[in-house]
């Protein structure tokens, strides 16, 4: 079927070093230019408990309790990189009292409703947070406000690295 030289030439093909670097490099050096179009569906799970101990809410992000900050990584697929530049972040908020959720960057919506910058909930809901990675220098803020106070959640997106930070309650 094939000449020996063809088979040898084929088997001599090596993966490029640049590819190796992309796949095994540490996340902070994983380079992805903004010119790649990306759609990320990263799922943050925020659980705000109405029954708190020590008057503090429990917030869980990606299965990890959010004490100060949580980090995780995401790699967009080639298909996602070709779709569009918007990042859509579903956030599940478990609220047991009237809670106002607002964003300073991007827009949010409850399922099947219009995009806005503020929503009000009083029971567990999933919120879709739509952001443009190139806006706000990759840093986005959400305020979660109820009778207990205001919590500020900051999301930083730096190529593949996502960092979510909770600031002290006001």
């Amino acid at each position, binding site marked *: 079927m094939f000449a020996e030289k063809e088979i040898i030439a084929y088997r*001599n*093909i090596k*993966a490029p070093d640049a*590819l190796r670097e992309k796949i*095994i490099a540490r996340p902070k050096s994983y380079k992805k230019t903004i010119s790649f179009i990306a759609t990320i569906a990263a799922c943050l799970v925020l659980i705000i408990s109405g029954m708190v101990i020590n008057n503090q809410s429990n917030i869980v992000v990606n299965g990890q309790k959010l004490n100060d900050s949580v980090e995780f990584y995401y*790699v967009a697929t080639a*298909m996602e990189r070709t779709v569009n530049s918007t990042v859509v972040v579903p956030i599940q908020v478990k609220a047991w009292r009237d809670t106002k959720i607002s964003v300073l960057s991007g827009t949010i919506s409850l399922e099947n409703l219009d995009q806005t910058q503020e929503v009000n909930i009083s029971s567990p809901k999933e919120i879709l947070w739509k952001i443009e990675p190139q806006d706000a220098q990759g840093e986005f803020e959400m305020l979660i406000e109820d009778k207990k106070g205001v919590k500020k959640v900051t999301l930083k997106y730096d190529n593949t690295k996502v960092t979510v930070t909770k600031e002290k309650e006001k």
Partner: protein
Amino acid sequence: MHLFKPNKIDVEAAFLRYGDVLYRLALARLGSDADAQDAVQDVFAKYIIAKPKFNDENHEKAWFLRTMVNQCHDMSRRQKLRIFTPLDDVKNIAQDEQTVLSDLLVLIAQLSPIYADVVVLHFLEGFTIDETANLLEITPSAVKMRLSRAREMLQELRKE
């Protein structure tokens, strides 16, 4: 959902074991260095997300190759036109082999995916009929039939 925390050691070890074979399989099937690199990255992204458990090294190898075959199928379907990158743009291929490889890849590109898969896996990568059947999740007799048909097609193509 695409949230994960990659285990760098596992990924690095897997890439050292399978990176080359995955890349050249993707290059043969997709015809473009850029697409081949994308395909390899996507396979490793799936590996990182799924974190599959393997019984042994054969199981692990089969997972990677099967995932790459499926990835190439998906990407091929999305391509409206087959795009070829001249191999002189691919720096990791020796210059004296570029012509041989270019001709080879053009040949393979003219086969439909089901024939290209068996040709690349059996004749170029050297997997046995049974191993090829296992990777493609088809019967050995189906592999033989496709190889036979692919051989006829390649003979015709070489005459042109």
